């Protein structure tokens, strides 16, 4: 019996020894865990500081976007003003050239009359002929005028291309809204970190809203797409809606 007790005692001692040996191994691990926890504090502090700093910079970013929108609108207005000036100048030049054609026609009539009157004076007749040849011809003025519709079309197309300003300003307004949504979330995160007593974990908030809010003055899906696909789809819908209305009217007649 004593032998059994002794062997049990040795077993227990052996277990205790193993425990101490394990403890010796685990102490450094626990130490490094404590060190890690101590390091995490400043790290979290840094993260909090970084978030606060980023959040503070967001209004500047939205201001810069707003400045870009204002600058492009100003530049677009200047381009539109210049296009108007060019269009007016073209109209004036065209009118002047048309007046010139009218004057040339009158000069031609006078030339014909003078040619008859100077028929008996070959020298004077030759001089008159040379004078007439040195004049601008109606054909050359006509050649210049025929370029005008093309130039007018091109200047008008510049105007139409400036629709891009309205579309990009809506895209930028959408980005601004997105940034402001992120700012709200970051601000909430900072509040959560500051208020955290580690009593309860912070619950994730609603997802950042990527769609336009109610009453937004922009279209988040605005795009400068010159293909006719979307307009074709609209035309189909309008046609269907009109057909539906017509059917409603027919139905009313029979009811």
């Amino acid at each position, binding site marked *: 019996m004593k032998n059994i007790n002794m062997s049990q005692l040795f077993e227990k001692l052996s277990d205790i020894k193993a425990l101490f040996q394990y403890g010796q191994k685990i102490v450094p691990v626990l130490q490094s865990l404590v060190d890690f926890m101590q390091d995490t504090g400043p790290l979290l502090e840094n993260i909090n500081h970084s978030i606060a700093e980023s959040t503070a910079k967001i209004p500047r970013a939205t201001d810069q976007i707003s400045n870009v929108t204002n600058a492009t609108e100003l530049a677009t207005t200047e381009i539109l003003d210049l296009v108007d000036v060019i269009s007016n100048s073209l109209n004036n030049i065209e009118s002047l050239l048309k007046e010139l054609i009218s004057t040339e026609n009158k000069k031609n009539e006078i030339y014909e009359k003078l040619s008859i009157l100077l028929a008996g004076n070959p020298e004077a007749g030759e001089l008159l002929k040379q004078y007439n040849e040195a004049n601008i011809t109606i054909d050359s003025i006509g050649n210049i005028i025929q370029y005008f519709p093309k130039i007018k079309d091109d200047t008008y197309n510049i105007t*139409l291309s400036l629709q891009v300003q309205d579309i990009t300003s809506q895209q930028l307004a959408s980005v601004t809204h997105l940034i402001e949504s992120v700012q709200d979330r970051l601000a909430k995160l900072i509040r959560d970190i500051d208020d955290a007593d580690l009593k309860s974990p912070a619950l994730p908030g609603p997802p950042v809203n990527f769609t336009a809010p109610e009453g937004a003055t922009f279209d988040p899906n605005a795009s400068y797409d010159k293909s006719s696909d979307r307009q074709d789809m609209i035309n189909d819908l309008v046609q269907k809606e009109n057909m539906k209305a017509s059917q409603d009217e027919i139905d009313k007649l029979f009811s």
Partner: protein
Amino acid sequence: MSMKFLVVDDSGTMRRIVANSLKNLGYDSIVEAVDGKDALAKLAADDTISFVITDWNMPVFTGLELTKAMRADAKYMKMPILMVTTRGIKEDIIEALQAKVNNYIIKPFTPQILKEKIDQILAHVQ
């Protein structure tokens, strides 16, 4: 042409582009408004306005709200309304049509489309 247009858009650039396009089509009589509320004030102040071209997304009062307000008023119930907007999603277009816009153009528009839609509306109205 004697028709007077009301061009409603919060973007000065777009108002000018639409107005220039109308002038190119021979319509010289144009009034501008910066949003739906301004448009209603312009309509109330000027009985000779006979055609409205409006954007959708605008501050204060949108183009859709303007359309609904006009259709709810006997005075403007039949007045042609053409929506010119960037909103190209099917649901938006249906919503606008249900609010009784006469037709719908997506930005960027071409002068051909603008002429086609105005002609279609006028042919339908007359």
